[in-house]
């Protein structure tokens, strides 16, 4: 933690953006590249190529970034205090996972104002798996006074490939942590900019209308015919790019192909929210996305950044 005292409007206890900026500074000090959100819709920060693709291959990598996460089925028209269809994850990936990763994580909590001497911090077993990414890892849910504030995972496999070296991944649930730090019961009540009086901007000021409109879109208005087509188009494009980019032992289009995989995954999530995918069909869609993810992972391993 830096010695200079933060101005009140930057203190994570008063400010949502202050929380994000504190984490950015903390992980920048650990040698991470601080990236900006990936400019595509995705269900979790793990989908960002800086995690999924960079976790593969032998090259060391350290990155941290905020990623807006879209979970269409979690939309509640802004009425549920803890549930949104669009929220922020703070994502950190360190490859290879350093020996003191748990310590670093605890220090980051200390930096945002969670003192481990006063709070009950716990690492509770959690086996993480992403069927769509063909990925799994072992680690924990990190609890602070009974609340899950982060996920901590040692990646074992991504896109169907063994991770060697192993990456350590941290995912902070920013809104939830902020509610705790700011002592408010609903995400919408969060102070976003840390100002008071007329200058105060809340989470609701920024996102309430969006939650309402996107909940309508996700549940009622998203044109499923178009979405099915988007899924198919993205799947076809992904396969076409994978074929076109293959060049002997090298691959020249791994990243564009992976973007199409992200697109297919998001189209599937929207279709799922519209309730037009049955339980058994659901499984086959997940498998189709996983096949794309695996092929993209394989292609990435044939690129320079993938260590080829």
């Amino acid at each position, binding site marked *: 933690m830096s010695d200079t005292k933060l101005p009140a409007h930057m203190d994570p206890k008063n400010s949502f953006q202050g929380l994000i900026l504190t984490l950015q500074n903390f992980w920048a000090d650990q040698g991470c590249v601080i990236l900006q959100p990936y400019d595509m819709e995705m269900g979790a920060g793990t989908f960002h190529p800086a995690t999924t693709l960079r976790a593969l291959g032998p090259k060391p990598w350290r990155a941290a970034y905020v990623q807006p996460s879209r979970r269409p089925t979690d939309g509640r028209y802004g009425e*549920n*205090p*803890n549930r949104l269809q669009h929220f922020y994850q703070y994502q950190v990936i360190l490859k*290879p*996972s*350093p*020996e003191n990763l*748990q310590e670093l994580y605890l220090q980051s909590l200390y930096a945002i104002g969670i003192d*481990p*001497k*006063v*709070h*009950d*911090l*716990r*690492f*509770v*077993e959690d*086996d993480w798996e992403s069927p769509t990414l063909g990925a799994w*890892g*072992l*680690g*924990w849910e990190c609890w*602070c*006074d*009974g*609340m899950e504030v982060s996920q901590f995972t*040692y990646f*074992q496999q991504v896109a169907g490939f063994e*991770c*060697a*070296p*192993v990456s*350590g991944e941290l995912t902070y649930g920013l809104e939830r942590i902020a509610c*705790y730090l700011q002592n408010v*019961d609903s995400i919408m009540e969060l102070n976003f900019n840390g100002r008071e009086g007329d200058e105060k901007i809340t989470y609701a000021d920024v996102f309430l209308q969006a939650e309402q409109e996107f909940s309508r879109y996700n549940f009622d208005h998203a044109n499923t015919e178009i979405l099915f087509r988007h899924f198919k188009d993205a799947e076809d494009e992904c396969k076409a790019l994978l074929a076109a980019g293959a060049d002997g032992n090298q691959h020249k289009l791994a990243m564009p192909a992976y973007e199409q995989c992200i697109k297919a995954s998001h189209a599937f999530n929207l279709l799922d929210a519209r*309730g*037009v995918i*049955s*339980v*058994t*069909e659901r499984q086959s869609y997940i498998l189709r996305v996983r096949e794309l993810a695996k092929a993209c992972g394989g292609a990435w391993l044939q690129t320079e950044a993938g260590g080829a």
Partner: protein
Amino acid sequence: MPELLLELFSEEIPARHQRRAAENLKKLVTDALVERGLLYEGAVSYATPRRLTLSVVGLPAASAATKTERKGPRTDAPEKAIEGFLRAAGLTSLDQATVQNDPKKGDFYVAITEKPGENTTDIVADIVPTLVEKFPWPKSMRWGSGNLTWIRPLRAITATFAVEGDETQTIEFEVGGVKSGNTTYGHRFLAPAAITVRRFEDYAAALESAKVVLDLDRRMEIIRADADNLAFAQGLEVITDQGLLEEAAGLVEWPVVMMGKFEEQFLGLPEEVVTTAIRSHQKCFCLRDAKTGKLADSFLLISNIEAPDGGKTIVAGNERVIHARLSDAKFFYDTDLKRPLESRLPKLDAMVFHEKLGTQSQRVERLVALAAELAPMVGAHADDAARAAKIAKADLVTDMVFEFPELQGLMGKYYAAAQGEKPEISNAILDHYKPSGPSDEVPTQSVSIAVALADKLDILTGFWAIDEKPTGSKDPFALRRAALGVIRISLDNQLDLNLSKLVGDHMVRISGAADEAKIADLMSFFEDRLVVQMRDTGIKHDVLDAVLGNGGLAKGFTLPSIVARAKELAGLLESEAGESLLAGYRRAANILRAEEKKDGKAFNQTVDNSAFLLDQESQLFSAIKVVNESVAANISNEDFAAAMNDLASLRLPVDAFFDDVMVNDDDPKVRINRLNLLAKLRETMHLIADFSKLAG
């Protein structure tokens, strides 16, 4: 006596693996020590979230020297044999072998290998790395750039050997880049400093003052006692939960029990909703009023630290989370109650149960028809059974069950009761999932029985109709459990159901036609499950096979009648008469088998009274005639005890026959008639069971 201390220090080990891991560590290390010639007096192992510890006392400082003798070939044996001996004994030339003399064998070679004793520390340094590498974790992982696997990253190893007095030695080795030493660490937050370790006694004491309770059982006991005391002081009782207690103790090194409260309004929720939210999701204990037995508006949390504010912040944090969880639950409950259950049924249209078996709605329609068909057979009103089946799955699309899937059935029951359904109908919504496992109870109310059977028979018939049967260890739709459920419900309630017919009728509902082969296959699947189930009640599989060999479910026999027959048969076989009768049967069957083979034909003609030469023949024949009629009558009356008595009465004439009659008479007419008589005996006994299936 010298002692060994070993600690494997890691990142947090999941609570559910700790006890087994400590046991494995003890077994693996002590077995390996013994194998290397090191006997010990005692060994104890411990586990906390961050460490596995083993203390072995009464070890020698070194293993004893050993001398082994290996006898070889005679000195004049061929060169090949001598070469082989040298190779096997690990000798380079004959100079290293000794010659011994045996008065019978003459001179022969002997290889004497003397192995000096090894220091215990060297042996430990040799065996532990391999054990760590091959440790049997249920699921292990790699980390960083290494290849070692452990349950979570292994960070330090302490290994010391204490000989006499204060003299201790660090046992040095390395595994997966982790070097052993004599340093451990205290509680992650309360006393994280390094601790130098000598032997178990000072190790355990140092950890205790560094806020680590090493022993899982002691942590459990501390939690239990503190929880009881805190509860008692408030006039409350802890709702005991051994599984939660062990889990809670596996999540802390320094247990601190504290009490939190939630708003009283949440007590208006069904009790199970509150306890599920608090126990399964927050790993906190629920409490009851000691006098009234009612759920209390407080809970107990187990913290891992003693905080300077006395835990106020921790309690407040936990209260917030539990408040949020209960608010969610209350919101779901209130929303769910606003709509009658059947108004949710259309949503089941969109839920595909299985692509070849249609939607949940179609499944519900089938359940309604099957439950109504079953109702009169189990003593229920058809309308009630149909109504219960109709709304049995409606809670799957309520908000509460979506959030807390473990409450399926239970919420349906509450919602049905709230909208004024009859108690037997609302109970059936919960009970129709039962029995959900070997220890779960079996439904006993008639409406519940009808819907529970319908639910299971529909799944089984459906998956058999589309050829998706369980194979090997793969049983994704839990069909074995469903079949076992049908068996237990039928037996516990003594239901004489013609399963073969029920399944046939239901297959028509599912696929438009009854496929006889599939029905027969499903019946034998039930029978296989029955054999497994009966094994636990002491009825051996061969007895059941013998009964089933005479006609099982496919022939319309019912589960209770099959089991009753098996029990009576087992009783008969245990009696002296039964034993003797079985011996007679076997003798008859063996003779028939041999002679049928010899003559190339079966002996199934009528027995000819006039061809008898001896009294024993005619006596046996008249006994068989009497018994045959009586057994048939008793079986059709399902009086299996009487049928067994009939059979037992054959014992004397059978014994007499074999004592005095020689079957293979020289006169072919006499011989054939005697063989026909034995065939008749076999046929009569097979009215009860196929005795040839009984194990010798």
